[in-house]
């Protein structure tokens, strides 16, 4: 599978920055929008997204596809997502390797999968069905996780790679999540990066996290940590010029600070490729 086109360095589209983004050119190349926040009939957010799309590539990033749930696929959700895709014409569509609820209850959280053969078959089947319904491939992100199922028999990276190969989907590799999960579960983040097939990665995520003593939490409310920049360098050296997005969802800084974080990602990528 060929990698997707290089969009450059982007940031998440958040309401705090709507006015700034629309008022003048920015130093970022593209935006990522949380799909669910724009799956509404009308109003200002949708209008803003359409206006942003006129000037920038946009990636739609969902949090509710729930590819790992054992509940039936939510056809209503897919229909709304299809409408948004037709409206916005995103560069591509991503969501997470997780489940968000079961028995009709949505936790609104990215819950970890047990990494078993049964779960692998299930996710591959679901992703295949979803891609057929959407008439396009999607990319799945590795979420941060805070526990390991006792039943797990496969490593997360092997599970993710197998899903991508068997369902013929992309990988949206969140470098911060690799670091957070590695710390929480005691595995080597380099081994994770090195095990992901190079031809499947469509996009990188970078973000900050918080240290809660017993575990790291993927809070997106800090600058990217030095250890994550280091891991990003390794990822760039392995995967090449992959579109990279900085996420910042809590304690959202002024636009200039966010733009500077994206610019740093650009520099790190350039240095990693030069070195």
């Amino acid at each position: 599978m060929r990698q997707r086109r290089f969009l450059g360095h982007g940031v998440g589209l958040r309401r705090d920055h709507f006015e700034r983004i629309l008022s003048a050119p920015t130093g970022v190349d593209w935006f990522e929008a949380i799909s669910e926040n724009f799956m509404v009939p009308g109003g200002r957010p949708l209008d803003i997204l359409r206006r942003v799309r006129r000037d920038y590539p946009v990636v739609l990033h969902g949090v509710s596809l729930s590819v790992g749930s054992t509940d039936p696929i939510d056809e209503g959700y897919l229909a709304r997502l299809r409408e948004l895709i037709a409206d916005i014409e995103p560069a591509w569509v991503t969501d997470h390797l997780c489940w968000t609820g079961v028995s009709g209850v949505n936790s609104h959280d990215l819950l970890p999968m047990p990494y078993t053969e049964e779960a692998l078959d299930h996710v591959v089947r679901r992703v295949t069905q979803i891609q057929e319904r959407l008439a396009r491939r999607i990319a799945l992100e590795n979420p941060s996780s805070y526990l390991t199922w006792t039943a797990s028999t496969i490593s997360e990276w092997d599970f993710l790679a197998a899903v991508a190969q068997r369902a013929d989907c992309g990988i949206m590799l969140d470098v911060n999540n690799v670091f957070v999960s590695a710390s929480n579960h005691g595995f080597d983040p380099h081994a994770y990066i090195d095990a992901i097939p190079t031809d499947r990665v469509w996009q990188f995520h970078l973000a900050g996290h918080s240290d809660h003593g017993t575990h790291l939490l993927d809070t997106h409310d800090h600058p990217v940590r030095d250890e994550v920049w280091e891991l990003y360098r390794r990822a760039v050296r392995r995967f090449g010029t992959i579109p990279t997005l900085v996420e910042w969802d809590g304690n959202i800084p002024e636009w200039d600070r966010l733009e500077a974080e994206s610019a740093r990602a650009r520099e790190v990528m350039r240095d990693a490729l030069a070195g």
Partner: protein
Amino acid sequence: MPSPDDLRNSQILFKELITAPEGVTPGASLLCAQGRLHTTDLSFLVRGDARLDAAGRLDIYAGMYFYRLRDALAEDYPRVVAVTGGANFHNLITDFLLVHPSGTWSLRFVGEPLAGFIAMHPLGREFPYLADLARLEWARIEAFDDEDAAPIARQRIAGLTQDRIASLRLGLIPACRLLSLAHAVAPVWLTLTTSGEAPPAGGHDSEAAVGSSAFEEIPPTRVTPPAREPSFIRVWRHGFKVYHRPVRADENACLVLLRDTGATLPEIGDLLLEHAAGEDEATQRMAALFELWIAEGLLRELPEGSIIRP
């Protein structure tokens, strides 16, 4: 009995544990007491380690489940939070989620049943107007991202003959909500100016983890309780800004007609006549309301012979 032997049972058990209102360990005890779990040692489900045992690992997800929903609902209902204070709102949402766990794919829709729930909750008895205040806050959220529609413009009216104006079939724009309340809560809404009053432009959903406790320290705001009296409020969006305005019974009746079936101006006039002392008063009232509705962007022109939503 849920067991971890297959994916679905594992997910159901996981969900039950992280949504248990008292936390994972009490939740496991309850499942054991109900005969739905064979042990409270959750290491058969989740691996523990030197840093956190299995229940501690699950507690991370339990905390994120509740706080994410509570914070989203607090953003939707800032004035309800102001009246109740953070601790009461926290407990309200704990009770609410037991009855109305989220069944929707977006946090945007989770709060829809909250006003009705408040009406039946002890806090609704302590603050009898609280459910109506919640209805107003929710109607503003609905109007915020409801379907776009161009309201009929003054210039369009100006270019028509009187006969043509009289034959126009008019309806309400979709982003308009009509509230029939038991308390006059509009002054309370005005009094409670909070930092969170803006609707969630851009939405609540994100993939970031959450967790906070300072919320519970928000003190209740002392409010003069509004009178218990029938009250009508219209909520609408003009451009991208949401407004609301208390209206009299005659205007509300007209707006209901416009919303439900659409109406011509003569039909509106007939309705106003039922509320007025005479024809002159009804005519003057219609002229004033029509002018106001046009100025505030409430009306849209319906195709001739069209039937709008029942």
